[in-house]
């Protein structure tokens, strides 16, 4: 059946695409070196932060393995949590933020001229690295959330213990302390979220690590999570880039945390990437709830947090999100038809950008050329026609010099 054959090929093409979109391992290493260097500087012996043992770790897409290479002039945006051994009783948000800021601006600091803006952002200090690296690091000062207020909400204690409080200039309590119990913008749990995320893809993560271990003839214990990508991570990378291209520059575009959360909730450890995308997208729609007429995308590690809280004041965000899911679903159903499969290259270029589509199609073609399928199937267009004017096509003028004469065996 050509549907099955097209499906298998589309899956391969999508893997090639996701590989192309992925952040190269060298950038992961660079990111890690950058934030560890910041950690070392903050925790150095002569630092005023040394007594509080600053611990720094990545959060967001770099921690989840769902980061994509930036489009065009955009930069790699790495978020790092900077956890200090203090409690909310000991420091106000402002004090915490400024302690870290003072150290970064210390006269001996290599970061003192790299902070942008110099006064810090709403929650973080942004370090802007040299132009060539296309790289900036957001350092979020924070302390452990000692209140343990949501233990009773059904979140496992192994996850709760990683909950943190970060600083937010927009809370009224910023200069004086911290917001009182209940959900507020200073509460977060990136490490807990990463644990939940990995748990959602446990089966396929273990499979991917086992496969890599076999390929490298290494023990599976030697394979780190970040060395492999599951179909869930690949699907999220593809969805994020689809979003970036479709809503380039639109403030109401679907946000990554909602895409990631819904996709992880909908993922059923499908082993095949095409299968995963096709099942995840309708599943995402189902995991968007309505609570008393309010759109709700629950943070899986904090049931009181609604990732879609902005949809209330800005209904267009919700409209775009649903419209986008419909579009993705329609496209994915179309590209496995014979007609769609033939044009898959054009479709990828429109939805994911010319450059990455071309790279993915080239990877796919170089594996496929000379190999072929036993059963007939639709061809794939690698370079579409540019198209001539139908009414007045152009005839290229050719000068025949030194003509070769036809010959026949």
């Amino acid at each position: 059946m050509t549907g099955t054959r097209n499906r298998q090929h589309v899956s391969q093409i999508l893997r090639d695409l996701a590989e192309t979109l992925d952040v190269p391992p060298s950038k992961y290493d660079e990111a890690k070196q950058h934030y560890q260097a910041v950690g070392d500087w903050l925790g150095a012996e002569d630092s005023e932060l040394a007594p509080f043992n600053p611990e720094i770790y990545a959060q967001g897409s770099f921690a989840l393995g769902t980061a994509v290479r930036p489009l065009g002039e955009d930069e790699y945006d790495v978020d790092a949590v900077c956890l200090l051994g203090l409690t909310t009783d000991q420091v106000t948000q402002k004090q915490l933020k400024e302690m870290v800021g003072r150290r970064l601006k210390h006269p001996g600091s290599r970061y003192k001229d790299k902070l942008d803006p110099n006064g810090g952002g709403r929650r973080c200090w942004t370090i802007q690295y040299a132009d060539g690296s296309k790289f900036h690091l957001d350092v979020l000062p924070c302390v452990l959330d000692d209140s343990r207020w949501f233990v009773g909400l059904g979140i496992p204690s192994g996850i709760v213990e990683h909950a943190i409080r970060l600083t937010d200039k927009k809370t009224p309590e910023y200069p004086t302390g911290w917001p009182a119990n209940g959900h507020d913008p200073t509460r977060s749990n990136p490490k807990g979220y990463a644990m939940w995320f990995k748990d959602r893809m446990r089966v396929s993560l273990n499979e991917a690590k086992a496969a890599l271990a076999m390929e490298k003839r290494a023990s599976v214990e030697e394979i780190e999570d970040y060395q492999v990508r599951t179909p869930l991570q690949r699907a999220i990378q593809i969805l994020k880039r689809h979003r970036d291209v479709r809503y380039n520059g639109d403030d109401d575009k679907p946000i990554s945390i909602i895409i990631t959360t819904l996709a992880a909730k909908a993922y059923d450890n499908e082993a095949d990437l095409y299968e995963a995308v096709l099942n995840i997208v309708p599943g995402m729609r189902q995991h968007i709830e309505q609570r008393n007429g309010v759109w709700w995308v629950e943070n899986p590690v904090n049931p009181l947090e609604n990732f879609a809280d902005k949809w209330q004041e800005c209904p267009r965000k919700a409209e775009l999100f649903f419209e986008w899911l419909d579009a993705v679903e329609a496209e994915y159903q179309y590209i496995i038809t014979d007609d769609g499969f033939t044009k898959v290259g054009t479709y990828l270029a429109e939805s994911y950008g010319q450059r990455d589509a071309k790279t993915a199609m080239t990877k796919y073609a170089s594996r496929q050329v000379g190999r072929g399928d036993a059963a007939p199937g639709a061809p794939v267009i690698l370079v579409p026609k540019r198209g001539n004017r139908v009414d007045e096509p152009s005839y290229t003028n050719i000068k025949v010099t030194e003509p070769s004469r036809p010959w026949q065996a």
Partner: protein
Amino acid sequence: MTLGEDVVQLVIDQVAEVQAEQPDLELTLEYTGEMLVRGTVRFSIDHEGRTYRDAYRVQIAIPPDYPESVPTAKETAEAIPADFHRFLKTGNLCLAAPVELMRVFAQNRSLLHFTNRLLIPYLFSYTYYREHGQLPHGELSHGLLGLLEYYREFFGVGVIKAMKLLKLLADAFAPPLMPCPCDSSRTLQDCHGPKLDELRPLLPAEHFEADLRDMIAAAQTAKLPLPERDVMPKRMWKNRQKRIRKASARRR
């Protein structure tokens, strides 16, 4: 065999280059694993004070070892009859003699060069033929005779001398200081050496040897006297000497 990513990339870039002149061509990957450039080629050629405009539907196949080998081409709308310079089995267009094909393609291993320098002149020759009953630049005879014509013309010499020169390619042995077999009393390097150098890298010595053996067989059938030692490929000459020695030993 599979092509490297760089070769696929090369083909994609080259098709884009051809499209600047031939926008109705596209590149496809067939289920068979073959890469094809297909669509309509349009050209306009000024010849003897007239402008010939024509369009053909074609299909160019990228060989598995591209750009080492030359692409092959078919005309797909049956506008060109089967008996007009086509390979019988495959239906591929006979654009030129094999060595000539390699020689021209080696000048610039690109699809644009292939299209403009080999394919379009061929298509034009049919356009012209349709109207005038003859080819604008002539054609080579079929088969062996055509090859012989090609070599004679390429070297600018007669039949026997062309075979002597071909022997140097077949034997892969052509010391630059030997007297040129064309009897110019110059050394090879100052005479036909450069022409030999042009052909030598294009095809393996076995190919030239096979052409030469066919020609010798034909000449022998026609009972043409041949300076055997100077035209026969080394292996052929040695075997022949062996046979003669055996025969004379038996007679004694």
